[in-house]
């Protein structure tokens, strides 16, 4: 469904700061996959997302979504199939606008025409959907989103993403900026929505336990490459120790610094 072919990106090419952030990535994401990606800082996880979403254009290689070559398609156009959630909970919603206005915008992707679609039918639909979050937001439709907590805003971003029924969901450490209780809550909502709507998902996480616990496939990235790809039974039997061992085996280098970054 999503296919990446020989994808590479080089930043500051031809200068002393040249940085090959991704090297020949080949990846196929099947419909219904829930992939977790781990890797230390600078491994290229976020760059990979930026390429899939269209924020960056690759130096070489091609990207296919639903068998369509989208390598040169601008970000806003690709966003019609892709639901992306960032680490910063403020990124997904417009703070100065009311909850219902935010939901209204998320309902229909693509160009917005000067027609009024927000009516009582939509409002009652929004209330029904908001009940799922169990945050009592269904009674605060007229409140500005800026009044909500980070956890509430991220949960709302999640709901807005689901309402637009995307073909692919990209979660970029979307719980990392939240406190442990809210992070757990948002994560539970995420898995609930993924199961309920059978969403194809890729999730970046710094937490190895999480990467092992969730999803049907795990990718480990290092230095711009996917160094380990495991799914099915292999993933089910995975433990943190085995994962660390695997990393040593592949990279055969000191893991001490990375161990700190890949916390449990």
């Amino acid at each position, binding site marked *: 469904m999503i296919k990446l072919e020989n994808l590479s990106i080089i930043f500051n090419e031809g200068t002393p700061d040249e940085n090959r952030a991704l090297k020949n990535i080949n990846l196929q994401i099947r419909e219904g996959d829930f992939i977790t990606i781990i890797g230390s800082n600078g491994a290229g996880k976020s760059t990979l997302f930026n390429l899939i979403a269209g924020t960056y254009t690759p130096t070489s290689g091609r990207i296919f979504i639903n068998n369509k070559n989208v390598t040169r398609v*601008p*970000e*806003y*156009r690709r*966003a*019609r199939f892709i*639901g*992306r959630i*960032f680490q910063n909970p*403020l*990124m*997904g*919603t*417009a*703070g*100065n*606008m*009311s909850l219902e*206005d*935010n939901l*209204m*915008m*998320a309902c*229909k*992707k*693509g*160009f*917005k*025409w*000067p*027609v*009024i*679609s*927000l009516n009582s039918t939509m409002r009652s639909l929004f209330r029904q959907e908001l009940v799922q979050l169990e945050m009592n937001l269904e009674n605060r439709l007229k409140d*500005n989103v800026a009044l909500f907590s980070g956890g509430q805003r991220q949960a709302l971003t999640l709901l807005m993403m689901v309402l*637009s029924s995307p073909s692919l969901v990209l979660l970029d450490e979307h719980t990392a900026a939240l406190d442990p209780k809210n992070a757990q809550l948002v994560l539970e909502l995420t898995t609930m929505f993924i199961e309920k709507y059978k969403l194809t998902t890729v999730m970046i996480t710094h937490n190895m336990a999480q990467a092992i616990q969730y999803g049907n496939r795990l990718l480990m990235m290092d230095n711009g490459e996917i160094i380990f790809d495991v799914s099915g039974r292999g993933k089910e039997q995975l433990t943190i120790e085995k994962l660390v061992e695997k990393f040593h085996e592949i990279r055969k280098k000191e893991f001490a610094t990375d161990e700190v970054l890949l916390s449990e």
Partner: protein
Amino acid sequence: MIEGIFIEGCIYGIMALGVFITFRVLDFPDLTVDGTFPLGAAIMAAFLTHGLNLWLALFIASIGGFLAGMLTAVMHNELKIPNLLAGILTMILLYSVNLRILGTSNVSLLNVNTILSNTYDFLKLHFGFSREISYMLLFILVIMIIKLLLDLFFRTDLGLTLGALGNNEQMIKCQGVNPKIIKIIGVGLSNSLVAISGAFAAQYQNFADIGLGQGIIIAGLASVMIGEFLIKSNKIFWLTLNVILGSIIFNGVMYGARILIFNIPFLKASDLKFVQVLLVVACLAVTRIQAFLQKKRRKSQ
């Protein structure tokens, strides 16, 4: 006197609504305004002196403003020129365009029928209203129509997207909307309002002048900022009403400056700008102090 302040407040209020759209809703500080205000005046004057349809003139003026705003937005979008600079470039370019349209630097509109004089003639004939009252009624009607249309627009899907763009551009992209198009629409809409305001200002003053728009952005910004301290709400209905009220207060302050100039012996007429700026700063300082006190009170509770 009161009527004069009110009428000018309404005329400049249309322009302030335009400034509100760029500065507050879109977060796109746009200085094109200084060029589109006289552009509206010039187009109106050209139509009036040729005896063409007045409402068509108003329509063409708004289209002219929209195109000028579009130029600023396109320069910003495609050439990555910072928005302030893009606005200034269009503003300078419009100076020449305005001179072309006007023919000379100043065109008198004393001996032609304008929308204002037609309204006055009509109301005097049927109801015996004075000139001031007629103008007041006309501008209440005009600004209310513009305000309500704007309110309606900001409740549409496109209007909501415009509001979100100033807040969070990434979100707009994630919703599958091209932010460049939204900027063009927003800045264009803003400048078409400014041009309409300029067209009315020319008719009210009975002349169109190349220097009409000088520093007009300050009037717009000050009106928006004064208005923000009047009624606290996140509803677009109150936000736009605040801008209009802010504009009326601002014009009152400007009138006050003129009275000061005439009544304080050591002040000369040329000191007007100086006094006006001092009064605007004082006005904004008062609003800041008010906000500060409110915050303090809330904390102590």
